[in-house]
């Protein structure tokens, strides 16, 4: 059913940047965040907002890669999962990483929109037996999980 694709697009869009009942989504949590705020850590070896942004972009890329069957290695950064930030403390560098997050979301969205509904519950050969539907549902939940953490980081960071 084509409506299934619409539901999944709704799910990933509201988790990322569309108006949502549940409150702040991932992109909304970044509104007005400065590079200094983004780089603040609540403690040693703890992730900052900036790193969460790149981490979220990476997992959107992984979802895209699994849905397309693309080979590994085409993410904009070398490495996987978590990436040390900031490399350069500047507004341009911060904006570039936020934009990378947006680009990976748009690429993922395009792939989801093009899925044939009959394939949604078929497993992906290269993705450890996970269905396309599960990949898409999972990445939406991942965005919101980290949005909640960014909201806490912003509040904690204001007090230092």
């Amino acid at each position, binding site marked *: 059913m084509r409506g*299934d694709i619409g*539901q999944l697009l*709704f*799910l990933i869009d*509201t*988790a990322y940047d569309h108006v*949502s*009942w*549940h*409150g*702040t*989504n991932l992109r909304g949590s970044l509104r007005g965040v400065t590079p200094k705020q983004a780089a603040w850590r*609540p*403690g040693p*070896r*703890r992730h900052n907002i900036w790193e969460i942004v790149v981490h979220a972009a990476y997992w959107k890329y992984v979802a895209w890669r699994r849905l397309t069957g693309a080979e*590994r290695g085409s993410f904009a950064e070398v*490495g*996987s*999962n*978590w990436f040390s930030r900031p490399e350069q403390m500047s507004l341009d560098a911060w904006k570039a990483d936020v934009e990378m997050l947006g680009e990976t979301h748009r690429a993922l969205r395009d792939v989801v929109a093009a899925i044939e509904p009959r394939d*949604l*519950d078929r497993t992906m050969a290269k*993705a*450890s*037996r*996970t*269905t396309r*539907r*599960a990949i898409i*549902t*999972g990445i*939406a*939940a*991942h965005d*919101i*999980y*980290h*949005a*909640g*953490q960014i*909201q*806490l*980081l912003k*509040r*904690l960071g*204001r*007090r230092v």
Partner: protein
Amino acid sequence: MSEYVQSIEAEFQRYKALGEAALRQLSEDLLSVPASGGGNSVAAIVWHVAGNLESRFTDFRTSDGEKAWRNRDEEFEARSVTHADLKEKWERGWRALFAALSALTDADLQSTVTIRQQPLRIDEALHRSLAHTTYHIGQIVFLAKQFRGEQWNCLSIPLGGSKAYNEAPRHEKPAAHSRLLERQE
């Protein structure tokens, strides 16, 4: 056919397990400590998540999701709780959710329920609840990690372990991830 409902339920299970793996790492005295700057304690967030789930999913198809007996403001009040108190409250919310989900099929998704008298399609209600729950579980994990510091037991791919994990990703499915978390102490 319940693929859609099952995929939503699997994500709920994943985040329930994540929350529980974080809660297990906290000593009882830390459950009620407010977040730095007067934010919510872990206990307050658990009360809120569980209160929300219990209200939304008790008699899910036949009554409004915001129950008259729910006192949302009270969920955020300071409280001193034991692990047993916490578990009891937490499970009550999740039980209501999973009972409601078990009665649903994908054919029900376009039907409507009401929350605060506003009609809402069931698929939208499930999305909202999944988002609300994962948002706050992200905060529970964050606070638990903050409290535990260097003693924190990683709940996902451990630092430095990404390459090895990518070679053999065994915990991608929510159920597999949940089982991994349940084995952690």
